């Protein structure tokens, strides 16, 4: 999946929970308090199902989930690892 498509898909999911319409792709959604850390589990379920990846404990870093950009990079990395 192209990065732009990936980001649109992520934004589509996040938008169901984040009531702010114009949050930026590089904006930290936890620091901005758009979502709380409990939301991470729903986010994990979404990326696992949508992008056919498996999130492991070692992936549980804020840097992987904190923004649309971070999520897109994380999914891309996991998909590349799986394809290798």
């Amino acid at each position, binding site marked *: 999946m192209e990065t732009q498509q990936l980001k649109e898909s992520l934004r589509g*999911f996040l938008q*169901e*929970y984040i009531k702010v319409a114009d949050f930026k792709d590089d904006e930290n959604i936890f620091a901005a308090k758009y979502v709380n*850390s*409990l*939301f*991470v*589990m*729903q*986010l*994990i*379920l*979404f990326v*696992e*199902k949508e992008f056919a990846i498996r999130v492991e*404990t*070692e992936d*549980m*870093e*804020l840097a992987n*989930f904190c923004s649309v950009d971070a999520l897109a990079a994380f999914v891309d990395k996991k998909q590349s690892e799986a394809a290798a």
Partner: protein
Amino acid sequence: MKKNGLKTSALCEFLQDVVAPQADELDTQQSIPKRLRDQAGEMNLWGICVPTEYGGIQLNAEDFSKVCMATGKASGSLLSLLTIHSMVCAAISRWGTKQQKQALLPELASGRKLAAFAQSEPQVGCDVANLQTVIEKSAHGYVINGVKKWISGAQVADLFLVPGLHQGKPIALLVERATAGLEITAINDMLGFRAAMLGEITLNNCQLSHDTLLGSEMFGLAQLVGSVLDVGRHAIACGATGLAQACLQLSTEYASRRKIDGKPMDQLQLVQQMLSDSAVQARAAMLMCMDAAKARDEGQPDMIVKSSAAKYFASMTAKLAADNCVQILGAYGCSGESAAQRLFRDAKIFDIIEGSTQIQQTLIAGEGEHWVFN
């Protein structure tokens, strides 16, 4: 995960034929004896959340739900043990390291070890972010201090998953019963789930190695709530539905043979109202549980709120069905000669454990409406 219909059916038969007839006696004795726990192990009950590669029979959510319903129908106390054990098994299966899985899951799957989830404290229930148990780093791993209370299965569990605050954030450690500094005091005479063998656990400077951490330090709370409490909520939702089914069965059977003015009670419209309320709500609760199970099998993000909604509805249904059951059975239902009084007491517990009804309402309201129409 695939369906495992044969093993599910065998387990449900075991629960109905072997466990249910003993449920009142277990309640009176306030324990589930090792003999019965071992029998359950032989039937693979303790391995329903453990992958087959580690000796379990990992059921998909649909079959897991059926087994939990059958367990709740047979004995609320056994359901309580199954719930906490399954929560820990699911958490290790999902977030454990390879070493943790290899060391613990085969033991847990067979029932040679039973697990419990030790979250509640004298002053804290569901509020994981404000636990008073403190976990600090040490040269060899972690030191944990605190008191856990109302822990189901504590009297017999071999392994505890213990959440506490580490640098202000919740994390969870796997603590063996034999750990130095860990003490357990039995809690008896509870209102319901009297055979669930509750206990209070004191953790006094318990030294634990690095590899007892389950999940991450960063997102421990999300991992706990998402994969441990969530499994517990779903199991309890199904169990409450099972209890409602047991109440309905008992009510219907009694109302069909008890006569008033020469007519069976079930011909009276006011009795029919109670029977129909119990029947319709039990059916609706079952469908909500299976809807949540479908979301779980598909890995849908809304599975969490769906299980929460099922728990909310099913626990209210259990109370209604138990209330109606005692009402229909009258004095007989209030006595030790009938299971109705046990079901009535157990029904109230469903309202409280694994997140009270009010906690579920908060969670459901916070989710908005999007899951309702999916």
